[in-house]
């Protein structure tokens, strides 16, 4: 019997560790990477010509980044690596398996696979704030990628706004690289972080890292503020200032020409949707994610999940899950199991899960902001659909569910397919209807999940 074809979608920490395990088992997995070089976003490698020393690029994570990049290089002869290749469609095959519709350097291609490991990662989670569509407003992740992949800052005077551990990290990296920071604003209350501190302390290495960034920030005199209630980007044709209201209701305004703002992370789960995976609502982070067992199995027998694409856990968890889910896949193929290795990974993952819960409690998604979003504010960046249009569809046209809202307003139908606006739109709909956000559901994924040029023959 020929060996099954296993494809891994995504070459970040989770995808690379899964590839390692499958290569060790001589399966020669197909590793499909939308990026041009393996490493994913967190350990993103600059393009050739833009390389810089790992310590300068990744700071604290330089060791882990280097290890993963070395792994990618070492795996090259034992895997089929497809860089610059986007999976835009996944269709089931009879009697089992999937066809992957891909667009890569050689154009379109359809790849039949028997089993799938989805390690599709995450992107910044955003909420509309006044002025957020002005040129010069980016996500925090974008601010970090500009620095890591290109050695550039998103502006000359940069304000950073966030609700997650990425905020102090990016602030620290920008300060260290010599960028000018106008303000660093955390919209989550300090009280949440103090309440979560004992549980965070159970993870000494990571807490040490967070404190280190905070301390370095303080040493450099960064204007860091917690508990910020509201922010607004001001400017005519471009970013000119950031206005904000502090925890005591006082108003401030700092001149700047760029803003990095986002509020945690959202799973990039559209591929899992196309593969038919069942989704569950995760109440702490208020998002729908593909259901994943502790061993990495989805609700679909041939589909495995690892990393932030099926639950936000960060890079270290992604590596562990990539390894664990690949072991589950090998077990399902009837390969000899390594019980000790599985048990060790399960222990490490359980420990990380406790820490992650504390981190999420320390940085709650500031969904209450949707109440303050004005009716004329753009929610859908792709097509300019406003909060007012969504609210009217809810109250006047009886949209009670996200896909109905999409049909009525086109929300989630633009180029990004709801990646940027989906969560905010769900919160706005739920708030208009006065119902819990999980009851309005989620936007269903549709192929193509990213734009494909029409001139390419499909």
């Amino acid at each position, binding site marked *: 019997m020929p060996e099954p074809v296993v494809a891994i979608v995504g070459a970040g920490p989770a995808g690379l560790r899964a590839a390692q395990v499958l290569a060790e088992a001589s399966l020669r997995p197909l590793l499909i990477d*939308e*990026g*041009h070089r393996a490493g994913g*976003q967190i350990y993103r490698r*600059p*393009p*050739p*010509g*833009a*390389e*810089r020393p790992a310590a*300068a690029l990744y700071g604290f994570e330089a060791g882990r980044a280097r290890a993963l990049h070395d792994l990618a290089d070492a795996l090259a002869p034992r895997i089929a690596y497809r860089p610059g290749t986007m999976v835009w469609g996944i269709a089931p095959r009879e009697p089992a398996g999937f066809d992957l519709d891909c667009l890569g350097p050689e154009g379109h291609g359809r790849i039949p696979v028997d089993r799938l490991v989805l390690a599709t990662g995450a*992107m*910044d989670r955003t909420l509309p704030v006044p002025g957020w*569509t*002005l*040129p*010069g*407003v*980016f*996500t925090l*992740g*974008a601010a970090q*990628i*500009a*620095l890591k*992949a*290109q*050695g*550039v*800052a*998103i*502006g*000359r005077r940069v304000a950073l706004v966030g609700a997650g551990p990425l905020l102090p990290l990016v602030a620290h990296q920008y300060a260290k*690289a*010599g*960028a000018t920071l106008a303000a660093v604003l955390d919209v989550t209350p300090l009280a949440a972080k103090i309440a979560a501190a004992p549980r965070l302390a159970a993870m000494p290495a990571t807490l040490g890292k967070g404190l280190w960034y905070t301390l370095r920030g303080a040493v450099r005199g960064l204007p860091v503020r917690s508990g910020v209630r509201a922010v607004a980007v001001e400017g005519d*044709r*471009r970013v000119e200032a950031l206005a904000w209201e502090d925890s005591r209701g006082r108003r401030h305004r700092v001149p700047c*020409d*760029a803003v990095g703002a986002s509020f945690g992370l959202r799973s*990039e789960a559209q591929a899992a949707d196309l593969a038919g995976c069942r989704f569950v609502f995760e109440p702490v982070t208020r998002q729908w994610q593909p259901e994943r067992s502790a061993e990495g199995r989805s609700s679909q027998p041939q589909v495995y999940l690892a990393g932030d694409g099926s639950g936000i856990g960060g890079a270290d968890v992604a590596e562990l899950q990539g390894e664990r889910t690949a072991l589950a896949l090998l077990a399902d193929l009837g390969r000899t199991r390594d019980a000790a290795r599985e048990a060790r990974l399960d222990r490490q993952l359980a420990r990380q899960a406790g820490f992650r819960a504390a981190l999420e409690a320390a940085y709650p998604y500031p969904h209450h902001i949707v109440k303050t979003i004005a009716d004329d504010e*753009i929610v859908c*960046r*792709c*097509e*300019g659909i406003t909060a007012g249009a969504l609210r009217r569809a809810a109250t006047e046209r009886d949209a009670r569910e996200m896909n109905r809202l999409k049909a009525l307003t086109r929300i989630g139908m*633009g*180029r*990004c397919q709801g*990646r*940027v606006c989906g969560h905010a739109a769900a919160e706005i709909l739920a708030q208009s209807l006065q119902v819990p956000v999980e009851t309005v559901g989620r936007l269903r994924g549709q192929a193509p999940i*990213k*734009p494909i*040029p029409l001139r390419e023959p499909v």
Partner: protein
Amino acid sequence: MSGLFRRLATRPGATVPFTIDGVQAEARVGDLLISAILLHRHALRRFEFGPGERAGYCLMGACQDCWVGLADGRRLRACTTLIESGMAVVTGGADA
């Protein structure tokens, strides 16, 4: 002309000539198209559905905010495309 982005890490390597709306500009080998443009300009394109301009948003190929046109008819996602010598970017009048 100074742009939105600020280069913090200067690096050796060849320069790459390209144009923005017919004006000669210079990038470095390894620059993404978005960096190449925003080191000179404050926006990438006009917004098609209303007033205003856009300069990209997520830089990881997810938000689709940074699609730009070239004079040869190609449309490219600027954050996942490397600059190439001779690219003729057409912003449609953004940040003119």
